[in-house]
């Protein structure tokens, strides 16, 4: 009889389960009532969140290393979903607590506090599905735009003639939401096309002409991709914010008629369906379809220009270029096609011969 393998993970799972059982007793039932009477601060829930984040990461890392097939990736997606679920729970706690019993000022203060944090919850829900290099661009386009502004002010000072108008619009976009940001992004793009963009796209001369032009083209494609992407993410955030305000108003009305979700699960169902419906209405519009196509096109152009630049840089190395490989693929394709055609001809000829 073989001995049972000494599986350290069984102890980890048992310890985890005990932990959650302990937390469950702590935040509800007798201990909670006692804490309320003594007026203890219930920041334990936030401490629990920190502990949960650490454990979720441990489980996700373990599942990724040892999971079979899709297990690791799926567990990470489930962890991301559970994380969003928990963050939404915190939002719902505030919403249910403050809107029912507190003053209008407290409600307004809560609304303002959650306006930013809510958008983080929303973007964190989906950022895990975006390719790693692009995730940062979906978190907060205003942060990304600020970096671009720093870059342009350092290196392209002569171009920054309209900086007064710019900085005013930029400040407005930070504080008044996505409409102002959309206007800022459009104005920035127009300015760029008419000034620095013209300089970037102008033909070069001299011995390094080709390489210099490639560099400028790749930079230009990068700028266009960033501005288009910024416009896209601002639009997505705008819908998220509008839905948030809608949700707050809706919840107030539901409270007054006592038809509000009674449990967090009910609230979660209501929340995600409301958001799905709002984004669905945006996605079906012609304007969104055009903008999405522009983002994809700008990203594709950027990829192509970067590829050409890298190929130019690697020209001295014994590595075939894309054009070399494409030529080879084309030759193979043509040969296969001819072979197929000849095979069919032969088959027809043989069949005719059989019949004779």
């Amino acid at each position, binding site marked *: 009889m073989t001995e049972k393998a000494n599986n350290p*993970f*069984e102890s980890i*799972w048992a310890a985890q*389960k005990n932990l*959650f059982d302990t937390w*469950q007793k702590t*935040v*509800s039932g007798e201990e*909670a009532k006692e804490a*309320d009477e003594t007026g203890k601060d219930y920041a334990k*829930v936030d401490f629990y969140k920190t502990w*949960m984040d650490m454990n979720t990461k441990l*489980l996700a890392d373990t599942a990724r290393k040892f*999971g*079979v*097939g*899709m*297990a690791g*990736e*799926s*567990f990470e*997606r*489930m*962890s*991301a979903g559970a994380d*969003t*679920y928990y963050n939404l*729970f915190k939002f719902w*706690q*505030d919403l249910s*607590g403050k809107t*029912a*019993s507190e003053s209008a000022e407290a409600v307004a203060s809560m609304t303002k506090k959650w306006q930013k944090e809510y958008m983080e919850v929303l973007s964190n*829900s*989906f950022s895990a599905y975006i390719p790693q290099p692009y995730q940062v661009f979906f978190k907060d386009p205003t942060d990304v735009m600020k970096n671009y502004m720093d870059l342009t002010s350092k290196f392209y000072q002569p171009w920054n003639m309209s900086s007064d108008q710019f900085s005013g619009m930029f400040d407005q976009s930070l504080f008044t939401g996505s409409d102002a940001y959309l206007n800022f992004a459009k104005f920035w793009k127009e300015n760029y096309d008419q000034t620095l963009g013209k300089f970037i796209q102008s033909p070069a001369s001299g011995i390094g002409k080709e390489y210099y032009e490639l560099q400028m083209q790749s930079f230009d494609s990068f700028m266009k991709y960033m501005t288009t992407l910024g416009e896209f993410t601002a639009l997505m955030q705008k819908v998220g914010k509008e839905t948030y305000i809608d949700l707050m108003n809706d919840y107030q009305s539901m409270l007054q008629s*006592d038809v*509000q979700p*009674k*449990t*967090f*699960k009910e609230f*979660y169902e209501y929340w*995600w*369906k409301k*958001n799905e419906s709002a*984004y*669905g209405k945006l*996605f*079906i519009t012609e304007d969104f*379809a055009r903008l999405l*196509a522009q983002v*994809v096109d700008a990203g*594709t*152009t950027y990829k*192509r220009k970067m590829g050409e630049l890298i190929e130019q840089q690697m020209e001295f190395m014994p590595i075939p270029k894309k054009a070399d490989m*494409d030529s080879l*693929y084309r030759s193979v*394709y043509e040969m296969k*096609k001819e072979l*197929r055609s000849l095979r069919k001809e032969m088959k027809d000829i043989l069949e005719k011969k059989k019949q004779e």
Partner: protein
Amino acid sequence: MNLMRMNPMVDVEGSMNEVLELQKKMIRGASLMMEMGDDDKVNITPKEVVFKEDKLKLYRYVSNEDQCVTPTLVVYALVNRQYMMDIQPDKSVIAGFLEKGLDIYMIDWGYPTQDDKYLTMDDYINGYIDDCVDHIRSTRKVDKINLLGVCQGGTFSVIYTALHPEKVKNLVTMVSPIDFGIENGLLFNWGRHLNIDNMVDTMGIIPGSMMNNAYMMMKPFQLMLDKYVSMAQNMDDPVALSNFLRMEKWIFDSPGQAGETIRQFIKDLYQGNKLIKGELEIGGQLVDLKRIDVPLLNVYAEYDHLVPPESSIPLNDYVSSTDKETMAFPVGHIGMYVSSRSKKEIVPVISDWLLSRS
């Protein structure tokens, strides 16, 4: 914040317990995942490779039942993998067809690589599909076979039948896009503005992950959040977990798309809607839907958000078949194959229709 001072009409304690129970289920589920071996339930209906060409494999499924004289070739879409029709024994549409007595062949398109970037729709339809049809006809000694096309495979099957009506006995299309000029399909709206030339010239093979991102974006909250939250709540159920992981594997197992094929598919169909206009050319030949005069069964899903019914239904108006009908089922696009209805209701209807005409 004091939990006990929340709205008295809200079940705080119950809600907190729900959240904690979710975490406990995830712990148990992670433990289950670690114990899972290779999936031994997917794509297991016995079959043999009867024909190969480049990356294509043609399978014939093995059956113990008395089989229909006319073989049926299943033409799956290029955008996903065909084993979804044999996802697990209790939901296998293929196994269902075999039990009903159909003789099933299926094309496995394989995974295109960069050397396939120049493959055109003509290569797929007049090349690969025609070669498979001819192979079946010669080995089974029949003049005509049944064609069953799934989604984009249905579009290809329709085009094939219009170009080679003499080789097709009966045609079944399932959730197949035919009219691409509809207003209420997200993919159709989005495809209309795509600069596919730039994409194909840059990438050659359009990555499967890119297609997946587009599908998920159509229902972001449902497909990227709720699906996983709901699953986490059942994660301690080994059967539910393994079924879920099996579907997940299929969903993300998307092949790349041959550049020239998707270029024409987007430009001529999504953007030009040339098929029903009678302007589509494949291999230099005009595709005339009126040349389809074989019995036609056009199956669509009522809750299909990928290929809305309005895109599938019109096919029957453009063919000259006299024996033709549409059939709707209250399922979604994928539900047509993996829901509880697929084996119980959908398979018998299609099988009986084919058997009575074979």
